[in-house]
């Protein structure tokens, strides 16, 4: 789909999660990566946000992996924000 600013804002809101660990990672991602995503990447991001928090955290933590190759680039960015200095 084509994402309007309102659609993007919806995804921004849906990046608010029930777990602080995810909020921290998504906050960095939204600040640095989100605006540069293509519509196709936003489709993938939207799908990723549908996952339950616990499963999403395990994916972002690298404790589990996915066979869905589409998710890989976004997941790599999210994982990147896990390992940069937060201070």
């Amino acid at each position, binding site marked *: 789909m084509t994402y309007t600013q309102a659609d993007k*804002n*919806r995804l921004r809101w849906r990046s608010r999660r029930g777990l602080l660990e995810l909020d921290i990672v998504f906050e960095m991602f939204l600040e640095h990566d989100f605006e540069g995503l293509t519509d196709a990447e936003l489709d993938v991001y939207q799908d990723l946000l549908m996952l339950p928090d616990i499963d999403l955290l395990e994916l972002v933590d690298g404790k589990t992996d996915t066979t869905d190759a589409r998710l890989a680039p976004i997941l790599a960015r999210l994982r990147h924000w896990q*390992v940069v200095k937060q201070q």
Partner: protein
Amino acid sequence: MANVAKRQFDAVIVGAGGAGMRAALQLSEAGLKTAVLSKVFPTRSHTVAAQGGISASLGNVQEDKWEWHMYDTVKGSDWLGDQDAIEFMCKTAPEAVIELEHFGMPFDRVESGRIYQRPFGGHTANFGEKPVQRACAAADRTGHALLHTLYQRNVRANTQFFVEWMALDLIRDADGDVVGVTALEMETGEVYVLHAKAVLFATGGAGRIYAASTNAFINTGDGLGMCARAGIPLEDMEFWQFHPTGVAGAGVLITEGVRGEGGILLNANGERFMERYAPTLKDLAPRDFVSRCMALEVLEGRGAGKNKDHVLLKLDHLGPEVINHRLPSIREIAIKFAGVDPIKEPIPVIPTTHYQMGGIPTNYLGEVMVPKDGNPEVRVNGFYAAGECACASVHGANRLGTNSLLDLVVFGKSAGDSMIEFIKNERPTHKPLPENAADFSLARIARLENQTGGEEVNVVREAMQKTIQLRAGVFRNSENMALGVKEIAEVAERAKRTQIKDKSKVWNTARIEALELDNLIEVAVATMIAADARKESRGAHSHDDFEKRDDENWMKHSLFFNQERRLDYKPVHTKPLTVDYIPPKERTF
């Protein structure tokens, strides 16, 4: 109210965590038209973060009794908990947990097939004699399992979910009765009036008033803010549970086992400051003592980092082998959330807020109770609260581990039952809405839209968080808290003039964050003023100038009225429902 759409329900519930969904299930299964509003998808509520378990004296692994659970809870509360509510919760716990099992919650089991129970700090047998295994868990996903189980049952029971709706204000009529809420639909930006026979708040805690908090970003105390604006007092807001070592700037916890393995705390000068405060126990002094020393180092200007706002947890002297073998997950957390490898560098840490003991004053039936005409507890007709946003009060001055999930299901159900009775017997038809029921909320939004010369929301929020962290954190003394009262009043004035650049209507996250700050600031002011006023040390409120618990003068609940910035007090309930009162004792462990 010409421009505001109106919808009618029997019951409106704000919040879709464990408490809100447990109450909703009760109401929907009774055939009542029930709406649940949630800022986020229900299974993404903060209940998901609860890992430890849910306590109940099932006695599946070791002999246990609800009376022992009650004793542990009263002691944990440092005798500020209401003993009728505590008895109700502990006595109801086994049936509440078995009910969850019957709903399909995947608890861990023992070989016979019964629910497994694990040990947990503070859980004892025979009134404090020895540890007992009382915590029921679904692996480390207990909160997740609870939310999913309750959500599915609610879908089956036809509960109507309003997902990505934010409640704005409570609607009270001329009699003070609650007849509904106003709410913002994020997808359209429209404000609605939701007209109800009964309203329940289950909006969770407000841990985000602190700079260092384990709470998710959604925990902005929306229910508490709405109460404050509607003239409902907030109870015992000075009591917040802290953990000594959260990663600074992140809030993620570092287990205390790290200090057991030989980790030490340093200030900015590289001094092992715990040697000064506790020459014998040093870094292994009790949790609350260590927390206060850490806060004192920061307060006196010996904090580390560019903002001098944390201390350092040093592990590298233990060597890579010990760290990799005994503390692998700690190394992982430090790398991810502090950006430091503890094999080489110390971890920045700070005492971190975890749980809010106070909240909306209720009784054990979930009814909201306020002082009126000299009576300390008069029911607000049509208004209920449950979960972390409510103060029943079962946690008193400090919460016992695994009692939080129990609180959600016991009082969620109890409030649901009370609402069913109220609707059936006292409010079979809707009470009329007051004229212009949405005007107050619309004016708040209009103020935000038209504000000029104000400050950005995140600037004011950070000022609030910094003030509360420094002045109402673990280290509390008269001088510091008096400063806090003055400072938070200034921040509250700034919060009245927040400004947003984005004026769009649809999915305007800036507007939502501004509205959340309106709620946070009410909680922050209540916390600061209630903490400053309590001249004793009890549970999580540790006052350096009044180091002892003072039952004679202070065994009472605080009630803060935000509009008049006024404190009132009410007695602790000392009459349990059926058993003898548990009299106060010195709290030693």
